[in-house]
């Protein structure tokens, strides 16, 4: 259903839906998301806080707390299997083996009471069946790969002996330990300060060239996404609202939300934090499945159809998709 696709993707997600059953009712966090990932490419997922980026990616490997979470629909095709239907044991082999994960906060993502070396060696022994000695050797290589100096000494250090940026490098080493086909990075730089952010992004770029895995890069920051991605998927309220190759998206943003996000980026002649604008209004609470456009309350183009029907993704040519009733280029309804 997605156009412009030559080779079979490594990951193909169709109509993924995830809800949370909470005391205040059901939260519809992910509402029918489809996307694919081709070998070696980098897909960025952008959207405000709460738009469902993390829940989408964690649903793929069932890394959510189930319950309260429930994956109510969808297929996640990987390596000829639907990951959502795999037995727990088989899914475990995919986690950390074929698909590596990096999380937002490196300060809390490592276990404080185990040595870093132990934590890197765990998946090596589990998935590759390496002996203690082999795993140790590989762990040193991995730490060198992610740019940690005097790697072999640092294996016996505890996480608190590393800085935030170094810990995120350790997390990357863990995620890459078993040569995954896919790396999912959930806002890996958000918790770090700016210079460290840039270093981590450089590192990922370099590793991607060297190792050739496909990457899903979750971020708030369209600016960062522009620099590293092949394609971008914009999410809002648990929906994909726009999806395009990176050049198309910046040249020809079609969704009012994407346009608003781009408008918040600082331009070249402006500098500093105070230049950052934000989109007024808040994302909706997702307590019921919407039957209007979820962006309507904040949208400058909203018109009567937007209140009655939720737009689904429409193909605009060359794989560029948008979910909006308003044609911003013509300035008229579609």
């Amino acid at each position: 259903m997605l156009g412009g696709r030559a080779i079979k993707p490594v990951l193909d997600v169709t109509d993924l839906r995830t809800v949370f059953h909470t005391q205040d009712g059901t939260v519809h966090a992910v509402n029918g998301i489809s996307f694919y990932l081709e070998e070696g490419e980098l897909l960025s997922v952008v959207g405000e806080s709460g738009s469902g980026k993390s829940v989408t990616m964690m649903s793929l490997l069932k890394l959510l707390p189930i319950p309260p979470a429930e994956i109510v629909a969808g297929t996640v095709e990987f390596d000829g299997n639907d990951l959502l239907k795999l037995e727990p044991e088989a899914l475990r082999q995919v986690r950390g083996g074929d698909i590596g994960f990096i999380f937002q906060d490196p300060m809390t993502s490592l276990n404080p009471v185990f040595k870093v070396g132990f934590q890197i060696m765990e998946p090596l022994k589990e998935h590759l069946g390496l002996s203690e000695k082999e795993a140790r050797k590989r762990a040193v290589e991995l730490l060198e790969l992610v740019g940690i100096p005097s790697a072999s000494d640092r294996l016996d250090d505890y996480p608190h002996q590393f800085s935030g940026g170094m810990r995120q490098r350790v997390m990357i080493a863990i995620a890459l330990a078993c040569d995954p086909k896919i790396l999912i990075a959930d806002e890996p730089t958000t918790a770090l300060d700016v210079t460290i952010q840039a270093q981590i992004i450089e590192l990922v770029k370099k590793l991607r060239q060297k190792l050739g895995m496909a990457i899903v890069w979750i971020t708030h920051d369209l600016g960062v996404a522009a620099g590293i991605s092949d394609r971008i998927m914009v999410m809002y309220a648990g929906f994909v609202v726009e999806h395009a190759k990176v050049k198309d998206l910046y040249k020809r943003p079609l969704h009012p939300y994407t346009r608003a996000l781009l408008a918040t980026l600082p331009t070249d002649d402006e500098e500093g934090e105070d230049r950052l604008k934000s989109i007024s209004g808040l994302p909706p609470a997702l307590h019921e499945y919407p039957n209007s456009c979820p962006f309507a309350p904040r949208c400058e183009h909203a018109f009567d159809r937007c209140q009655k029907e939720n737009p689904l993704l429409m193909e605009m040519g060359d794989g560029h998709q948008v979910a909006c009733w308003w044609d911003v280029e013509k300035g008229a309804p579609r």
Partner: protein
Amino acid sequence: MLNYTLRRLLFAIPTLLVISFIIFVILDLAPGDPTGQLPLTIPAEVRAKIRESLGVGEPIHIAYFKWVRGFFVYEPLYWLDQIGITIGDPSERARIISYATRGPVFDLILERIPQTLWVVGLSYVFGILIALPIGVISAYKQYSWFDQLGTFISMVGFSVPTFFTGLLMIVIFSVQLGWFPSVYDTTLDVNSWDTFILQVKQMVMPVAVLALYNASQISRFMRASMLDNLTQDYVRTARAKGMSEKVVVLTHVLRNSLIPVVTVIALGVPTIFSGAIITEQIFRVNGLGQLLIIGIQGSDFPLVQTLTFIFAILIVLFNLIADVIYGILDPRIRYD
């Protein structure tokens, strides 16, 4: 760590001296006459003689000095002597003497320690062994029937006092069913299979009562600590690495959750020696708790002073041990 431990030990000495003096003053203020329990037919002059020979009524600083000398110098020397190392002249040493038995206080205490350690200590060990798995499973299966049942039982075990559960057990298992003896026979000499069975039987109820109480507390701690850790980010990381649930829970989560629990367990050890007073009374286990009660009733100040002070030492010591264990278990803690 070693430095820290030594420093703490050095600090403990003045602390303990102050504690011992406070205990001494409080006991000195307490009304009571060690001859009060003697038969009424004994005339007043004789009583006065007895008091004098016991050293009652000496000025407090002299009495305190004698006790300190007894506790810190003569008693250690005496016990060294017993293991064959003689320093100085043994005949000149005045050991701490009980008012009631006229025998050395330490001999009394040593007689009582085995009973207390067997009954109370074993119940502590059982309590821990029961509590840890219950706490882990309750947390992992939060709100399951297992957790609900565990919560209910520990609520009961924790809130119902041991004298009540103890009496209830005696009524049911001794009086009604006749399974276990209601009185603990200290003179029982375990030398055959039959006497061993008898010993086990008489230990079942006091151990069960105390184990229930200990297990209730510790399992709550364990559960809370597990729940704290189960939602941590590092748990998600362990799952994302593809580790099995067993490794995630029993290695990653348990290792972190045990840190506060082990500390609490270490802090609770002194209560083995002092805290089972009531249970020992109910089941007539003549352990240290009961010895203390007898000492208080008989105004046997040297005994009470010495026992109380030993409890104080244990509390200070196990506080230190708890801190050291914490430092060993949690690599983030550095004491130097």
